[in-house]
């Protein structure tokens, strides 16, 4: 029994198998294999569509075989460094991940306390909520030039990195801010009454009651923020021309070498998926408390 109220997805209602013995047999066979067969069929369909497209209406698009041949050196030697913008795919990924980690850390360090303030103080909410709602939907492509202008005057600074960090943290911050604020507002009044009856100090109320009660919401925010940070990285690297998975993609496109673009897209997707899974494992651990 978890006493904190969290959305719980109901278990799917099992549909009754067909009454006919042969149909029931097929049904059982399918239900045993569909976890494997269906994704496989989906992948095959997309691959077929890709072949078909590159053969018919999208002549510039390399077909899967060409893509595989051209991408192979980047995959079999994932950590090779042949030049600034010619490196193994995991090396590029690593560079991007480092940048994302920095930007994401800044987003959490600023976003979590900001969310707490918004959750605690109605005054803060009234003052800041409109501006947050306006800034939240702004695309990373719009923030990056502003970052360049802001940090452009700094002598000896790596302007493109600072601008990229500025963009990543600014875009990734909002889910953390808003979820933390909602989490703080959703702290059951009972817990706050306990803190009052036990005469807990402000610090103890914060650390023993408010933060633990908000953690599940905070981690939902953290997970969404990480997803956005990873989305933004591509845009940031494209515009700044930094080496990384997004920078590589853009550079290959500009060099009219289209074979590795799909490789980059798949890598970005896969890394994003893995990051999301990792975060949801952490999130579930905090929910089960």
């Amino acid at each position: 029994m978890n006493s904190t109220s969290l959305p719980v997805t109901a278990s799917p209602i099992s549909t009754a198998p067909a009454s006919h013995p042969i149909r029931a047999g097929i049904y059982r066979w399918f239900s045993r294999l569909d976890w494997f067969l269906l994704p496989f069929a989906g992948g095959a369909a997309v691959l077929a569509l890709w072949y078909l497209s590159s053969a018919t209406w999208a002549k510039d698009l390399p077909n899967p075989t060409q893509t595989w041949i051209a991408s192979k050196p980047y995959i079999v030697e994932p950590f090779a460094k042949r030049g600034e913008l010619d490196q193994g795919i995991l090396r590029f990924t690593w560079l991007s991940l480092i940048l994302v980690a920095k930007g994401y850390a800044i987003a959490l360090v600023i976003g979590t306390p900001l969310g707490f303030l918004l959750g605690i103080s109605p005054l803060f909410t009234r003052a800041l909520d409109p501006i947050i709602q306006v800034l939240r939907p702004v695309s990373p492509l719009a923030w990056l030039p502003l970052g360049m202008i802001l940090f452009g005057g700094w002598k000896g600074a790596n302007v493109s990195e600072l601008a990229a960090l500025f963009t990543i943290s600014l875009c990734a911050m909002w889910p953390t801010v808003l979820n933390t604020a909602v989490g703080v507002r959703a702290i059951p009044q009972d817990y706050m009454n306990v803190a009052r009856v036990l005469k807990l100090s402000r610090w103890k109320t914060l650390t023993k009651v408010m933060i633990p009660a908000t953690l599940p919401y905070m981690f939902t925010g953290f997970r969404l923020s990480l997803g956005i940070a990873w989305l933004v990285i591509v845009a940031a690297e494209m515009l700044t021309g930094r080496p990384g998975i997004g920078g590589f993609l853009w550079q290959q496109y500009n060099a009219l070498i289209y074979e590795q673009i799909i490789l980059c897209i798949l890598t970005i997707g896969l890394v994003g998926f893995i990051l999301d899974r990792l975060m949801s494992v952490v999130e579930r651990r905090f929910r089960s408390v």
Partner: protein
Amino acid sequence: MPLLELKQVSKRFGDASVLNEVNLSVEEGEFVAIIGYSGSGKTTLVSILAGLLAPDSGTALFDGRAIEGPGPERGLVFQNYSLLPWLTVVENVALAVDQLHPDWSDSQRSAHTDRYVSMVNLAAARDKRPAELSGGMRQRVSVARALAMSPRVLLLDEPLSALDALTRATLQDEIARLRREQNQTIVLITNDPDEALLLADRVIPLTRGPGATLGPGVPIPLPHPRDRRSLTHDPMFQRLRREVIASLLSVAARTTTSLSKDLILPNLEPEDLERPRSWSTRSGPVRLQERRTVTVPAPTDD
């Protein structure tokens, strides 16, 4: 001088008057049970005694001084236990002890905490989280947490109403034991006349809200310890029980004869988003755009 006193206390929430000119006085060492219907303002009353709510008019006094907020001298046991789910049994109790005795050494504090955990027979479950405990065990933790503050009065807000009958009986016996052994002053809020009669020295009915007030109290001169089995056949118990129920019903009859309320049902039934929508069967949300008017008759005096 009474330990706990309410003088002409009234409390409103918006337009609704919840408590109206309530008077109460509890002597040191007394066990008072306040009994009333659900929704009659019992929790509001205990919140005022605990200092979680301030009365709109009238005064709430503890030991002759106005109650200005919650304090360790008034230990509150919440209706829904209100344990912190991320702390173990012992940590929940220790939270109160650590805050109250910052000058003690760590070993002194943990000995004090352990004493109260054992007092409610939870030593074996001391490192479990509330989610791993049954309802009765959780409520015992809540009692231990309140007692560990060594309160001068223990406020019990319907502590047993969420429990099954057997667990209830066990915990009633434990409350009676605490009372005998510690001579603890207790204010028990309950909706069960038998529970009130079994435990308390005085039973006070709360009239049905809105604008509830305390009726005249019924003293219960039955000797302690009381045995629940022989008690039911005791003519004095039966007479007192009739008296308490009659006073509850008579205050009910004086209020409005019926109240009607609109029940606006939620528009949507939760949808199972894990399941893809299928073509053949309807799996979309079921809309319940209904508005029902229900008339609830007040109980009559018969």
